[in-house]
């Protein structure tokens, strides 16, 4: 059988891939024996814009690295600059950042669940989850003015406040989404077809996941209790939550982790609304950033790291972003050998790929 190998290009355009990435799959009959990624279709060179945009304008560039985790990108960037300049962000801004982050997490996981259902032909689920997501996105528009890229973060705090009535509406929305997600819980987690497609597929062990630097739900589905939110940046230091952990490390476990994370996010929303103090939402920023900082933040897809270096001028010297998908690709490549060709789309989706993040 050794000499009957075929190389199949998976992508760059493929029905399950929202963005272009190519995988060169070496197959032996139907089994994948080797996989090699080819990226670079949407490399935009956003990091080098630090040379021409000043550090306040870069917030909006950072936000556009990824569409789905946009607020968290802006927040991570702001956190790193605030760390450099030793800025104390007002407590209310910290809470508002948590609220928008968790709204993003809920809408990202719902979007992912829809795409996942679509990947194995569960159209009804796809429609259902995106319908629920619509309410979350509408709430983002009501609170920030835009649906996904909300541009509310700035160095030193946030740019818009949320009125008390809207905060109450967020609680109502959290309850509503919880009820509607609970209604589909049974059909996602106990469905025969879904289990058949996901259980014991693409297993990575706890040690492997840690050593390969997997991030976010991929890491936690393998039994590693690591969530960057536990570091306690922004308002997370005031709130109580437990990272969601599963031990199986297969596609089903990753689905479960994301599904249960939605409930944690909704709970965090309620906590944040209950505890939010009154006060200022931003502080004035004076001077220019200088020094080096390394910031880890948890996004819906996993942990993002920002490395920034300032040299005392209004332009940073260097900004480097490691996005969650960038960290998950090596884990994904390790999952692939041994699986069937038909499982590759499902495996690709369980790492929740975001290629424009990866290439920046």
């Amino acid at each position: 059988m050794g000499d009957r190998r075929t190389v199949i290009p998976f992508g760059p355009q493929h029905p399950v891939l929202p963005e272009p990435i190519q995988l060169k799959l070496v197959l032996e009959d139907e089994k994948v024996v080797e996989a090699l990624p080819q990226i670079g279709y949407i490399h935009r060179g956003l990091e080098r814009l630090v040379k021409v945009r000043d550090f306040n304008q870069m917030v909006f560039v950072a936000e556009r690295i990824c569409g789905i985790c946009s607020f968290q990108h802006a927040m991570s960037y702001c956190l790193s600059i605030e760390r450099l300049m030793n800025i104390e962000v007002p407590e209310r801004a910290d809470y508002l950042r948590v609220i928008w982050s968790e709204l993003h997490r809920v809408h990202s996981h719902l979007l992912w669940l829809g795409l996942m259902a679509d990947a194995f032909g569960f159209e009804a689920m796809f429609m259902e989850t995106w319908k629920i997501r619509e309410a979350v996105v509408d709430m983002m528009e009501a609170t920030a003015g835009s649906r996904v890229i909300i541009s509310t973060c700035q160095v030193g705090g946030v740019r818009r406040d949320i009125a008390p009535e809207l905060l109450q509406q967020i609680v109502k929305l959290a309850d509503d989404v919880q009820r509607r997600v609970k209604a589909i819980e049974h059909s996602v987690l106990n469905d025969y077809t879904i289990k058949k497609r996901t259980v014991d597929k693409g297993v990575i062990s706890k040690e492997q996941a840690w050593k390969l630097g997997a991030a976010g739900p991929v890491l936690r589905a393998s039994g590693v209790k690591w969530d960057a939110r536990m570091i306690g940046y922004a308002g997370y230091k005031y709130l109580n939550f437990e990272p969601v952990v599963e031990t199986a490390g297969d596609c089903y476990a990753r689905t479960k982790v994301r599904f249960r994370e939605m409930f944690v996010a909704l709970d965090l929303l309620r906590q944040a609304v209950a505890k939010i103090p009154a006060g200022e939402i931003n502080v004035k920023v004076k001077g220019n950033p200088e020094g080096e900082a390394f910031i880890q933040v948890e996004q819906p897809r996993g942990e993002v790291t920002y490395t920034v270096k300032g040299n005392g001028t209004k332009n940073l010297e260097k900004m480097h972003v490691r996005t969650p998908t960038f960290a998950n690709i090596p884990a994904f490549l390790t999952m692939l050998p041994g699986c069937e060709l038909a499982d590759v789309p499902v495996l690709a989706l369980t790492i929740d790929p975001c290629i424009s993040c990866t290439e920046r």
Partner: protein
Amino acid sequence: MFGMLSPILKNGFGKPATRLYPFEKREAFDKARGQLEIDIDKCIFCGMCQRKCPSTCLNVEKAASKWELDPYNCVICGVCVEACPTKCLSLNKVYRTPVYVKENQIKIGKPPVKKTAAKENA
């Protein structure tokens, strides 16, 4: 097996989740960010908006009293609105419609009267 049944029945007999868009429009939210507008008479052509804009879609020329916006480059972040010293910029709630030709918005205003010049005249 019947887990999906209740959502399906609800969807089958309930109200549609979508709107008949062109006939039935959703009201814009209070905070919605639509398009950038300028009250050109109040503008003093200081160029603050141009300097703050992250997408470099604005061009202000003091000598010609010209304020130019490339609306298809604008990301509607609202930084210029916050930065404007005379509050002549604002965001309305109407989203941009598709166009055939992309054209820059050019507004020519009155050159601001210099305070010192006004004093000298008086």
